[in-house]
């Protein structure tokens, strides 16, 4: 009960902070919109299916790294210490992951909407399945990047380390996600993708479990 209450408070705090500054939200939205626009200018016409899919995931990957990396990197040492005295580390990692998942799902849906407005969704594709794939993707990005950004923030120098540490971990899941999204674009039968969905969910659960176990050790200085 104590844990649930702490998690709720922490998520509220994160949302409030974000709402007041709107830094992450605006920054990432600007990033997504400008990237899509640059792509539009350089492609001139509608890209074919494969390019469409690849481009979307590249944009999402970098946007999510920028969005999630801030969750630990932006906070000062003093504030870390203050939170440490107030709540349990488990509550903190759960709260950060849930908040980042929500943020990522929101961002992804907005990005997808904008992306579909500029480049139409390929004809014959399964839009609902594609949305499922992107939501799964944003959940995965959130769980993995939250933990990696915690590690990177403890190690001192932020952004560079974050990229080095997270890319080898995210690539296997990204391959699964791109495959899933490609199935959706090709309009394949939904039963084909069930295995991949299961695999992504398993990886997510595994990452979450490992983070929950490891974060208390990481947090304690």
């Amino acid at each position, binding site marked *: 009960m104590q844990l649930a209450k702490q998690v709720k408070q922490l998520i509220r705090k994160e949302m409030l902070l974000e709402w007041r500054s709107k830094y992450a939200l605006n920054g990432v939205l600007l990033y997504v919109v400008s990237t899509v626009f640059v792509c539009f200018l350089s492609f001139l016409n509608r890209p074919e299916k494969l390019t469409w899919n690849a481009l979307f995931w590249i944009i999402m990957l970098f946007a999510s790294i920028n969005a999630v990396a801030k969750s630990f990197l932006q906070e000062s040492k003093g504030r870390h210490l203050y939170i440490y005295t107030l709540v349990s580390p488990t509550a903190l990692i759960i709260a950060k992951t849930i908040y980042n998942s929500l943020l990522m799902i929101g961002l992804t849906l907005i990005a997808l909407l904008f992306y579909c407005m500029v480049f139409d969704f390929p004809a014959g594709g399964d839009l609902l399945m594609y949305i499922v794939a992107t939501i799964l993707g944003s959940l995965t990005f959130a769980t993995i990047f939250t933990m990696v950004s915690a590690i990177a923030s403890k190690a001192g120098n932020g952004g560079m380390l974050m990229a080095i540490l997270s890319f*080898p971990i995210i690539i296997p899941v990204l391959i699964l996600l791109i495959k899933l999204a490609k199935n959706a674009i090709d309009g394949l039968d939904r039963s084909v993708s069930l*295995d991949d969905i299961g695999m992504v969910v398993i990886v997510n659960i*595994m990452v979450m479990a*490992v983070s929950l176990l490891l974060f208390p050790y*990481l947090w304690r200085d």
Partner: protein
Amino acid sequence: MSKTWWKILGPILVIYTTIAGLLLGVPHLDILNETIRNLYFHVPMWFAMIVLFSISVFYSIKSLSSKSETDDLRAVESINVGIVFGVLGLVTGAIWAKFTWGQYWSFDPKQNFAAISILLYFAYLVLRNAIDEEQKRAKISAIYNIFAFPMMVVLLFVLPRLQSSLHPGNGGNPGFNSYDLDSRMRAVFYPACLGWIIIGYWIYTIRFRIRTLENKQL
């Protein structure tokens, strides 16, 4: 003698499998032909790498609770040796691929995933170099190591099964646990795995002892 018997067993097994692997008869298969002998040299590298990385995860978990410097040293040294075996596995695979697939690196899923899993451990070493304070370094790198290990397992054992690959053992291509591994090959292959695992473990213990001595002199 009771403690060092495996140090004699390891080299004997490796020498035996090198000679026997090149001289003993092998089944004749299409495409593979004589390159099937690479099984004795390529696959044991991966076995040794997995064993060494498992040792490192074991000591990383131990060092999180014990906070001792030796556990951290054991973890990093087994990764150092494991990376060497991983690179050797990639190289032996690439040379084999040149003669069967036509080019050293053809971006086969198995090659890519193996390379990425090595990359994970390079990232571990970069992380270690980024932190100066020793206890902090031990703790954070142990956490990353434990975090990365399940991902490596997914990369090497789960994902290649989901994709079509030309690698032996995938999608109907002849593989080492199917019909082509007859009793003659088993007699060389299993000792080769054991021998290279022992050699890898031995190198790791030597490196660990050197590092411990260096630390004492400081």
